[in-house]
Structures are given as structure tokens and as C-alpha cells.
């Protein structure tokens, strides 16, 4: 027996050199890995291009050009009665304030000895944003005692001047631009040298309401952020309990029959329904039938809830399904009821998965635009919605719709603002994902 084994020559070649078959197999494996690496590389490159283009275009939206002016708030113009009564003072419109700002700018230019050769009074006025008068008026009405004093203000510069400081507008483009002249840009240079014109962090971009086509420098995301936040509150409050309750019932209690199969198929289908269909549904049911107001976060929230529900139910059911049956048996075995077994053991174990699904569903809802267009959230809204719950019924905008809105506008200054709004949206999404990770860690640590 042993003799025969020794006599037989080894069937394969030496182990120290790979044979043809092995070489081919190894080559195939190397190719396979390379394909994977290329795929990952393409994905990362696409992400980098996307993010960098948004950051390059959008980061400038967070800085804005301001003019520093000492404005004499003339009592004769602003409060003829001398009573400092806000009701009386509010009769003075922005035109009255505009004149004071013009005067202040003129005085400043003269005091600093800046030459304004060839510029008309209107050219000088146009250096300032049309929003500036409203800015000053709001502050004065909030604090009537300022009247009669000379107060230093930081007023918005015109969008073109802002563009010049950011490099979007140049001397060459100004020649062809009917909204700004090269002389105005020279004046801007002179003002900047004197330190009267500077770029600061643009809080208004985050807090202010949207502004018209003509004053991009004043446009902000305040109303859109509030509207989106209100809608997220509604979506979270409605879809999390409904979704989790439905999932628990379907997964743990419902009998397996044709009806539950039908429901299951329909939930999967609903998750795949295009979001605009939910918009039409919302328009028909919540606005036309139920008579809820248009452009209101309540309608947006309800529509997004409908859209988010299947996207929460599916991962929640998967999370419940992944809890090992032995845990349920153990609980039933010590005499727990079905509900106790579910609430005490299955649900806590499924919690990380449920939270992840919920937050991903919410993030999708936050970025959803199409259904909101149909229910009127695309409207131009200048007024902040009130505090909840009444505020849910006030008109508001939404972040993704605001992005869509701004990209529709012709003034190039809205390009940076649209990108800036995307950055804000992405920051919100990042915060939500971070919350998801933190919550998941927290729940996992308990076990």
C-alpha cells in the first residue's frame, strides 16, 4: 500500500509554482477587485465634484456686502407728532427712510472726500439695496427712542455691488450691464478703501424671508427653514407612531392570510409611487376636499407623512423580523403576553433599525420638492408663519422648493443663493443622520 503511494508520481505540478488554471483564477479575481475599486472611485469622484461645485458656488451666499452709514434719524421726517407712538410712526413708509439713507450716504461721501464725478444722485442711491430702507424702518419701529439720534447702521449694499466684491461683476461686465455702471464700481472701490463697504457674515441669509427678483441681496431662508421644520415636526409626530404601530401589528399580531398579503404588496408599491402623485392626492383631498389652506405646512406635512409611511413601515418590519424568534419564545415561555413580549423585548431590540429607517424617511421627506409644488408651497411668502400649532396653517415655504424657486430667477445673484440653500439643506440632513447614529449607538449600548 505504502509502496504504491510512493511509486505514483504527483498528479499536479509543484506547489511552489502556480499552474495555468490557478493563474487564470487569480487573474480573474484581480480583475473583479479592480472593477469594484473603479466603481467606488467613480462614486467618490462624483460626490467630490458635486459637493465642491455646491460649496464653490454656495459658500459666498453666507457673506454679504454691507455699507456702514451713520444715519441721522430726523424727527421731522419719522415722527412729526413727537409722541414716539409706533402706530403713528408706522404711517411713514420706506420712502421716508430711503431719503434719510440717501442723505447719510451723500454726507459720508462728502466727508470722506470721495469724488463722485459723473454719477447722478440716483446712481449713488442705487449703490444701496432697496431693502435697506425697510431694514432701518424695522429697527426704528422696534425701538422708537432712536428717533432724533444719529445711529450707525449696517445696511445692505446693492446686489451688483455685492457681486463686484465677490468677483461675479467686473468692470468689463458692468459696461454691458444696464443695472450697474463702471463709475459705480469705482465708487464702491473708493468706499471699500475707506472701510465703509465690507463683507460680513450674512445672518440675513439664514433668518430673513425671501425677497423679490430685484433684490437678491436681501433674500433669505428664514421662512423656508421654519416651513420645513414645521413639516418635519408633523411628519415625525404622525408617521413614526402610525408606522411603528402598523409594522408591529403586521409583523407580530396579524394572521398570515390573503388580506395581510395584499396589504404587504400595497405597502411595497406605495413606497415606489412617484412623490408627485402624493402631491396630486394632497391637492385633491387635503385642499379641495378637506378645505385646508394652500401653501400651509400642515398640508405639506400630511402629504409628506403619506409619502414617508411606507418608507418607515418597510425598514421597521425588517427590523422586527430580524429579532431572533428565540427571544419571543423565551418571553412567552416565562409567561409574558404577546404584547409584553413585543414591547419589552422585541421592540427595544428592533429600535436601532426603526430609528435608522425613520430618520432616512424623514431625510427623504425633507428633501422632497415635487409634491410641495402641487400644494402651493411654491408661492412667494414674505411673512413668517406663526408659532405652532396655529403656525401650521399659515403660508410658508420649504427649503427644497426655495432652491427650485431661486434657480428659476434670472438675476445671477440667485445662483449663489440657490447653492447656499442647498448647503443649508445638506447641513440639516447631516444633522439628522448624526442624530440617527447617536441614537442607534445609545440604544445598542443598552444591550
Amino acid at each position, binding site marked *: 500500500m505504502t509502496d504504491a503511494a510512493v511509486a505514483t508520481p504527483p498528479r499536479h505540478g509543484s506547489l511552489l509554482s502556480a499552474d495555468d488554471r490557478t493563474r487564470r483564477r487569480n487573474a480573474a479575481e484581480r480583475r473583479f477587485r479592480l472593477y469594484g475599486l473603479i466603481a467606488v472611485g467613480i462614486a467618490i469622484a462624483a460626490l467630490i465634484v458635486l459637493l465642491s461645485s455646491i460649496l464653490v458656488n454656495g459658500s459666498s451666499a453666507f457673506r454679504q456686502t454691507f455699507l456702514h452709514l451713520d444715519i441721522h434719524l430726523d424727527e421731522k421726517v419719522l415722527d412729526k407728532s413727537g409722541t414716539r407712538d409706533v402706530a403713528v410712526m408706522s404711517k411713514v413708509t420706506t420712502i421716508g427712510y430711503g431719503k434719510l439713507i440717501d442723505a447719510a450716504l451723500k454726507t459720508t461721501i462728502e466727508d470722506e472726500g470721495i469724488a463722485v464725478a459723473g454719477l447722478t444722485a440716483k446712481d449713488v442711491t442705487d449703490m444701496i439695496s432697496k431693502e435697506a430702507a425697510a431694514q432701518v424702518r424695522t429697527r426704528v419701529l422696534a425701538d422708537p427712542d432712536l428717533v432724533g439720534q444719529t445711529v450707525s447702521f449696517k445696511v445692505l449694499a446693492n446686489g451688483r455691488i455685492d457681486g463686484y466684491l465677490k468677483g461675479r461683476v467686473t468692470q468689463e461686465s458692468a459696461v454691458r450691464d444696464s443695472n450697474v455702471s463702471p463709475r459705480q464700481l469705482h465708487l464702491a472701490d473708493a468706499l471699500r478703501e475707506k472701510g465703509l463697504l465690507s463683507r460680513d457674515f450674512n445672518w440675513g441669509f439664514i433668518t430673513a424671508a425671501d425677497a423679490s427678483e430685484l433684490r437678491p441681496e436681501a433674500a433669505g431662508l428664514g421662512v423656508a427653514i421654519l416651513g420645513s421644520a414645521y413639516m418635519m415636526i408633523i411628519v415625525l409626530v404622525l408617521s413614526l407612531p402610525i408606522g411603528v404601530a402598523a409594522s408591529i401589528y403586521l409583523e407580530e399580531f396579524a394572521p398570515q392570510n390573503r388580506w395581510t398579503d395584499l396589504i404587504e404588496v400595497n405597502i411595497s408599491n406605495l413606497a415606489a409611487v412617484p412623490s408627485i402623485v402624493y402631491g396630486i392626492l394632497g391637492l385633491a383631498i387635503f385642499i379641495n376636499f378637506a378645505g385646508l389652506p394652500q401653501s400651509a405646512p400642515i398640508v405639506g406635512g400630511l402629504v409628506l407623512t403619506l409619502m414617508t409611511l411606507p418608507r418607515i413601515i418597510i425598514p421597521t418590519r425588517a427590523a422586527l423580523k430580524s429579532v431572533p424568534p*428565540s427571544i419571543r419564545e423565551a418571553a*412567552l*415561555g*416565562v*409567561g*409574558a403576553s404577546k404584547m409584553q413580549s413585543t414591547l419589552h423585548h422585541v421592540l427595544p431590540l428592533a429600535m436601532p433599525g426603526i430609528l435608522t429607517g425613520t430618520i432616512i424617511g424623514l431625510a427623504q421627506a425633507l428633501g422632497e420638492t415635487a409634491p410641495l409644488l402641487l400644494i402651493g408651497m411654491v408661492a412667494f411668502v414674505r411673512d413668517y408663519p406663526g408659532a405652532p400649532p396655529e403656525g401650521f396653517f399659515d403660508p410658508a415655504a420649504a427649503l427644497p422648493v426655495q432652491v427650485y424657486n431661486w434657480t428659476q430667477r434670472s438675476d445671477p445673484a440667485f445662483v449663489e443663493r440657490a447653492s447656499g440653500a442647498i448647503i443649508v439643506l445638506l447641513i440639516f440632513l447631516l444633522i439628522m443622520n448624526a442624530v440617527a447614529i447617536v441614537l442607534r449607538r445609545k440604544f445598542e449600548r443598552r444591550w
Partner: protein
Amino acid sequence: MDDMRAVENAVSTAEIKIAARGVQVFYGDTHAIKDVDVDIPDRTVTAFIGPSGCGKSTFLRCLNRMNDTIPICRVGGKITLDGEDIYDKRVDPVQLRAKVGMVFQKPNPFPKSIYDNVAYGPKIHGLNRNKAELDEIVETSLRKAALWGEVKDRLSEPGTGLSGGQQQRLCIARAIATSPEVLLMDEPCSALDPIATAQVEELIDELRSQFSVVIVTHSMQQAARVSQRTAFFHLGNLVEYGETSHIFTNPSDPRTESYITGRIG
């Protein structure tokens, strides 16, 4: 031999705890248990043996209505616990399972602390009035399960961090913490090494003084070591049921003999 006789005497005097008459179990169209009659005495270890798929686990799960959780499973016949029909419409399975505890094949501690694992049953059944009583129940149960010495200093650590044998003893402690009257064990040692198995077997023998223990096992040696009565199942039929010593030394049915001697199964 005297020992054996003493055991036999104990068996004959013990009262009947569970009586099954004409039990049938169907899984959909499959007839899994065919007309089984068994009397399980109190304070005795009863072993169910038989080849895989013979229905011994299915029958065990009928005794605390764990089969209720399987939608396609139907149970016929009559099973009484202390004379009360456990399949009566008025019986709440939750109450039944508090009386008839169960230990499963694979150790399945809750992913919670050792303390919470044992305290869970008493808590949901309201067996304790305060924390001190609960502490006492936990300690007693862990002592009875021969685990107290190993875990008393780390009660707050997760039960899933214990070794396999410790986990199974934790599951036994959890089952006895609700002070059941019957303890069902479904192959409790099949996932354990021989040392852990010996510990669990020793424990089963001690538990006999307080509970009626029913154990399903694949190991005939184990049945012979721990049980006083043995039931042999084959293809859904109860082939033979009697004193363990009798079944293993002088089986009356040829199928039992073939199984015990290793010719079938």
C-alpha cells in the same frame, strides 16, 4: 439496585400532574402526533426520547400551549393539568405558562443584565411586593440553578456574555423564578459541552424535589441518567412509556429495543 427500587416506589406513589388523552397534533395536513396518552407524575423527571422528527418536541410544546404561536398547528384531544383542561376556552395561555415553565434547546437569555433576565418573570406576574423581595427571588432562583456563585458579583452584566452552559443555567433560573409547577426542557443540553451538560443534569436531579420535570433528549444515556420515567416516540406515536429502568433494560416493544440498541433512529 436498592436505590432503583426506592426510586420506583417514589414514582408509584407520586400523584399525576399532567394527563394527556388522545392527543392529536396537525401541522397543516401533516399528522405530527397520533393519539398519545401519557400520565406525567409530580416531582419526577420524565424523559421523552425518540429519533428526530418523531414529535417529542411537538408534544412537549403542547403541554404549555407554545404551539399556539404556530398558526398552522392544530391540537386535538385532551390535556389536563391537575385535572383542569389546559385547552379549555377559558384558559389564558399566559397564566398556564406561568405554571408550566419552559427551557429551550438553544440558550436564549434576553439581551439584558443577568439580574433582569431572572427578575423579568416575577416582575410581569407581580410575584414580588418590593425590590428586596425581587432580589431574594433572583438570588434563590440563581442558587437553585447552581449559578449564584459564578455570577453574584456581576449581576448587572449582560446575560448574553456568559458561556453557553452558564447561559442555559441562567435560562433555567429564569424559568424557575416564576415558581412554576412543571418545568419543560426541550433538549436543554444539546448545545452544551460535556461538563456543562453534567452540571445541568445534576441540576435537573435537584429540581425534581420541587417540580415535575419533563425533558426531551436525543441522548439515551442522558435519559437513563436523569429520568425516572421514559416515553419513547416514533413517527408521531407513543410507542412505549414506563419506568426508565424498565424501558432501558427490558423494553416490551421491538421498536423501542431497536432504537435503544441503535438499529433505528
